[in-house]
C-alpha cells in the first residue's frame, strides 16, 4: 500500500474498491451492549441543534494548526476519522468547557488501526470505539516503545495481525474516550455537535472533488468504503436554503474548495467536504456514525506566568 502517497492515488484506490471501512454488525452489537448509553439521545438537549450552526473543527485548528493536515497512506481511514473526532471533542472540552486539561499534541492513529483484529485492510468503527474506550489512545509524540511523532501508516498495519503490543497498550491506558455513542438520525447528530461532540462515520459513498450547481460537493457515482470525521454542520439556512454538513477527509488536498464556501465559516481546511443534508444522510443511515465525548485527555501542566506580565509594564 506504499503507493498511496498522494491524494489522487488515495482517491483512485478507494474508487477501485479499497476497503477502508468495514461494516461489522457483530462488533457493533458487542460494543453497544457494553455501553450504558449506546445511542446518542440526550433528553436534556433534544432539539438544541436544530436551526443552529456548529463549526467544531475550528476549535482543534485553534489549538493545533497541524490538525486535519495528515494524509493517510494505507487503508487506515477509520483511525484517522476517529482521531479527528477525538481531537475536535477534546479541543471543545478545553476551549469551551474549560476543562483542566492540556492539548499536548494531536492524537495518533497507529494504535487504533493496530487494534483492528486482523492483518488485512480496513477496520470496523465499532472496533476502533472499543479500543479507544477500553484501552485508550496516544498522541503524536515519541514514546519509549514506539516513535509516533510523525504519522507512519506501516506501524498500525504491522500491528494488525498480532495486536497492539502490550507496552503500547499500557501507555494508551492514560487517555481514554469516556463516551462513544451511536447516532441514528441527523437531528440527534446536530444535537450532539451543537453541544460539542464531534463524530466520525463509515459508509459506502463517494463525493465529487469539485462543486455542483449548488456550489458544494455532491455525491459521486460508485462508493468508497471509507470513514471520515464529521466536523461541523449549518442548519441556520443563512447561507444555504438547506442544511449542510462538513466532513473532514483524511486524504490531504484531494478536492477543491467549494465555490460557495461562506467567509463566515473561516478558512476552508483542505480536503473538507461541504455537502447537503440529502447527500450526507448515508453517513448516519449506514449505522456506523459515532459521537465522541468525555475524553480523558492530558493532565494539566504549568502556566507560563500568573497573568500579570506585560500588562502593567508595557500595555
Amino acid at each position, binding site marked *: 500500500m506504499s503507493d498511496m502517497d498522494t491524494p489522487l492515488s488515495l482517491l483512485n484506490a478507494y474508487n477501485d474498491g479499497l476497503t477502508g471501512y468495514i461494516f461489522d454488525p457483530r462488533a457493533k452489537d458487542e460494543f453497544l451492549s457494553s455501553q450504558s448509553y449506546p445511542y446518542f439521545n440526550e433528553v436534556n438537549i433534544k432539539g438544541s441543534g436544530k436551526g443552529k450552526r456548529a463549526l467544531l473543527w475550528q476549535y482543534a485548528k485553534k489549538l493545533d494548526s497541524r490538525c486535519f493536515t495528515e494524509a493517510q497512506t494505507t487503508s487506515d481511514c477509520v483511525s484517522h476519522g476517529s482521531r479527528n473526532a477525538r481531537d475536535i471533542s477534546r479541543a471543545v472540552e478545553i476551549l469551551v468547557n474549560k476543562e*483542566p486539561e492540556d492539548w499536548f499534541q494531536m492524537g495518533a492513529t497507529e494504535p487504533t488501526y493496530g487494534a483492528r483484529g486482523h492483518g488485512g485492510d480496513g477496520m470496523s468503527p465499532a472496533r476502533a470505539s472499543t479500543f479507544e474506550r477500553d484501552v485508550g489512545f496516544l498522541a503524536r509524540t515519541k514514546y519509549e516503545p514506539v516513535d509516533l511523532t510523525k504519522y507512519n501508516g506501516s506501524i498500525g498495519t504491522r500491528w494488525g495481525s498480532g495486536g497492539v503490543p502490550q507496552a503500547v497498550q499500557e501507555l494508551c491506558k492514560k487517555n481514554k474516550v469516556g463516551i462513544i455513542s451511536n447516532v441514528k438520525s441527523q437531528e440527534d447528530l446536530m444535537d450532539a455537535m451543537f453541544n460539542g461532540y464531534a463524530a466520525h462515520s463509515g459508509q459506502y459513498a463517494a463525493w465529487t472533488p469539485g462543486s455542483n450547481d449548488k456550489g458544494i460537493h455532491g455525491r459521486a457515482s460508485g462508493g468508497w468504503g471509507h470513514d471520515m470525521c464529521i466536523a461541523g454542520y449549518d442548519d441556520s439556512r443563512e447561507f444555504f436554503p438547506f442544511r449542510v454538513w462538513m466532513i473532514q477527509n483524511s486524504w490531504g488536498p484531494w478536492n477543491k474548495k467549494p465555490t460557495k464556501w461562506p467567509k463566515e465559516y473561516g478558512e476552508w481546511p483542505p480536503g473538507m467536504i461541504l455537502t447537503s443534508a440529502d447527500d450526507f444522510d448515508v453517513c448516519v443511515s449506514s449505522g456506523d456514525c459515532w459521537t465522541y465525548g468525555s475524553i480523558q485527555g492530558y493532565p494539566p501542566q504549568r502556566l507560563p506566568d500568573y497573568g500579570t506580565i506585560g500588562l502593567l*509594564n508595557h500595555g
Partner: protein
Amino acid sequence: MALAAALVAASFVGSPRPAATGPVAVALQSASSTDKAKIRSIYGALADIMARDTGRLITTTAVWRSIYSDALRLAAGGTSLVGRYPDLDDAVEKVLSEHYTLDNLPIDQALADKIVAGMKTVERQCE
C-alpha cells in the same frame, strides 16, 4: 473608666499605620496615592471575585489566569499606570508565587483561599 477608654481610643487614633512592605510596595515606592489606590482597588476586586466563586465558575488556575489578565487589560490597559512602575509586573508575580503555584489545577476551596490571599497581599502592599 473614662480615662481607660480615652487611653484605648488614643492608642488607635494616634498610632500611624505601618508602612507597607514587600515587592509590590517597593515597586510602588514613587507612586502617588492615587495610583496606589487604583491598583489596590483592582486587586481588592479580584480577591472578592475569587472569594465569591471558589471554583464554581472559575474552574482552573488557567481559567483564572485568563480572567485575571483580562481584568488587568480592562482596568489598567491604556491608562497612565502602564509602564510607569517598571518592576511592578514582576513584583506582583513574586507576591502571587508566594501563595500558589503555576500548576494548572482545578480550583477548590483551599486553592481559592490561596489565590484570595495572594490578591489581598498585593492589595495590602499598595497602601
